[in-house]
């Protein structure tokens, strides 16, 4: 049986074959990276290497291009980016404890993404919502006056919504 990973790679290979037929095939690199990110959610190293073989472009150049453009993620990113404010007000109101609970609950450290690609945990500088401290920003939305317990409740709810 084919795994999901193989399927993605096949789709990418197919796309590259198509692009190779175009004049100046190498110029399609950014488009191919877009396709890879669309399939994988980010650009894993082995995928970039596969592109290097597939398109006959040095892997170093691919890395150079991928790291130049902000749009490409070189690390996996979750569906929800959790930016916990660690500004003074939030910290005093217990953001540190919340961070510990979140780390424990998600089993990731700051800057990492959970295995199910649902959550990316990040620290934030003051979000300017001190009145609501402590606050957590989930993608573009702000949740305030959190406690360790209510934060975990929120994560549970997000998990449910994602399904």
């Amino acid at each position, binding site marked *: 049986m084919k795994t999901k990973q193989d399927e993605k790679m096949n789709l990418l290979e197919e796309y590259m074959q198509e692009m190779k037929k175009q004049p100046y095939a190498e110029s*399609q690199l950014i*488009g191919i990276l877009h396709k890879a990110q669309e399939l994988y959610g980010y650009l894993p190293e082995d995928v970039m290497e596969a592109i290097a073989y597939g398109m006959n472009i040095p892997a170093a150049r691919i890395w150079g291009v991928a790291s130049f453009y902000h749009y490409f993620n070189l690390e996996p990113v979750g569906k929800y980016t959790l930016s916990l404010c660690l500004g003074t007000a939030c910290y005093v109101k217990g953001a540190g404890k919340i961070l510990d609970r979140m780390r424990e609950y998600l089993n990731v450290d700051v800057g990492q993404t959970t295995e199910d690609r649902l959550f990316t945990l990040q620290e934030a500088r003051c979000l300017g919502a001190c009145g609501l401290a402590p606050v957590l920003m989930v993608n573009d939305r702000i949740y305030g006056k959190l406690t360790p317990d209510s934060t975990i409740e929120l994560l549970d709810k997000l998990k449910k919504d994602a399904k």
Partner: protein
Amino acid sequence: MGDSVTTNQPIEKRPRKQVEYNIILCSGPSCLHNKSSELYTEIVKQLEAFNCQSKVEIILSGCLGMCARGPIMVINPGYILYGDVGVNDVHDIIKGHIVDKTPFSQKVIHEDHLFNRFYRVFGDVKFFGKQMRIALRNCGIIDPEKIDDYLSVRGYEALAKVLTDYSPAEVIHQIQDSGLRGRGGAGFPTGLKWKLTADAEGEVKYVICNADEGDPGAFMDRSAIEGDPHSIIEGMLIGGYAVGAKKGFLYIRAEYPLAIKRLEKALTAAREQNFLGDNILGSNYSFDIEIRLGAGAFVCGEETALIQSIEGERGMPRPRPPYPSVRGLFDKPTLTNNVETWANIPVIILDGAKWFSTIGTKSSKGTKVFAVAGNVENTGLVEVPMGTTLREIIFDICGGIPGNRKFKALQTGGPSGGCLTEDSLDTQVDYESLAKAGSFMGSGGMIVMDDTTCMVNVARYFLEFTQNESCGKCTPCREGTKRMLEILTRITDGRGEVKDIEKLERLGAMISKASLCGLGRSAPNPVLSTLSKFRNEYEDHILHKKCTTGSCQAMLTYSINDQCIGCGACIRVCPVNAIKGIKRNPHTIDSELCIKCGECMKVCKFRAIDRV
């Protein structure tokens, strides 16, 4: 100008489906964000409920420009403009307007700013208020996803005219005579650019549309593409014919998915009708367009960097000469124009260079689209003839500064521009006048700031942006902007040093002189222009550690005055327990503990908290 502007036909005169009413629902980015797609479903439902669906055609249009009041909806005939429309209002609007034939007055926008007038007079008079729409002529009027709609407003007629009546040289003449200049910012004469590419040696040539709109707060190109993609395609077709290119590239930001979708749809439709492809309209001219996606690099708006990016490389500018018109994409002669420039081309061909050159000022012809944002009543898109004053744009068209605040400064040209003060408000919008006043045209971002804005902080914000976007190729820009940003951050944090102003000026001058491309050359502009016009603010920050607008949090001190009755409200909200005091006795703030969040000031009912 007589009858020359026939592209601006009102919607009733066009051969459309025979219906009594048109509902134009804005599907621009802001309105979509405000759930205009849910409105569509509700409109369809309500029309069916009242059994009048056969009387009405719904048109999903591009951005109408009045983003501040979105979602926007227009019902014709009558040009009644509805704003802030919620799903629950749809029932009342349909019942009132279409069943009972009286507009639902609660949601009608009455103010006589640009947009209302624009609709009342559009089609009969060329000057709707102080706006004039040439580049955006079809935006908000046609359905951008239907090629027939574009054809009904004389779409692709300019292409047909060019292919049958004009030689390539004659087309270039027309563009040169029109006086059109590049709308991307620098204002290079478009006709001359075309001529240089046409004269360059080589069999294979390319045409590029630069839709890598990256200035924060600017969305002119996005709206033009989302509202009227065919105009840009037609412009490129004419450009390709004039310079002898068979292939065009449309370089667009990946962050604009709707614009990309509409362009793809438009390209497919144009191919089906043989406006693109081989032997276009039976002529021996063949041309096709390929979309290439950007990937979030501001510097790729620079012509040579953009070319590198299309070639699949890191988007870094390269030195010129050789100029792209001689050696550009894949080392072939290449013509690059910005979205707005391309959108102007079909009109110039149809209505004539002579007509076009009557609009505007001596050196700048035609119109310019601006995205006006910041502290202004009507934020949105505005297209005005060159020569309109900044005061007219901000106060007459955009309704002035909200909340009775005072105008302080205007930033044009985005992060590469400069700021202009009250004294410059009567400056006419054209390339030379803006440059003389100390800013520049730029691609059309316009940020209005009122007296609550700290200019040092604004300069820091813009520099943070350019520093982040510096491609790193040349040292003055890569290192210089970083050092400048450090100094500015120090100043806004209250750690400024006396020599900082001098250092900023020296660094700024050096970066401007020594950088390779426009990004670096213009990066210090926001700092240098605020330094020359608001030097006192810098001095306040550095010498007195004071930010008069209260924007720079680190410099504020909160204290309690004798108005305090000792109610304890501030004690309860203070997140760091910095306020102490006994009930019914004046409280005090411990400035060592205070983190300057301002929560106490918000809850105090007695104005007992001072902030200096």
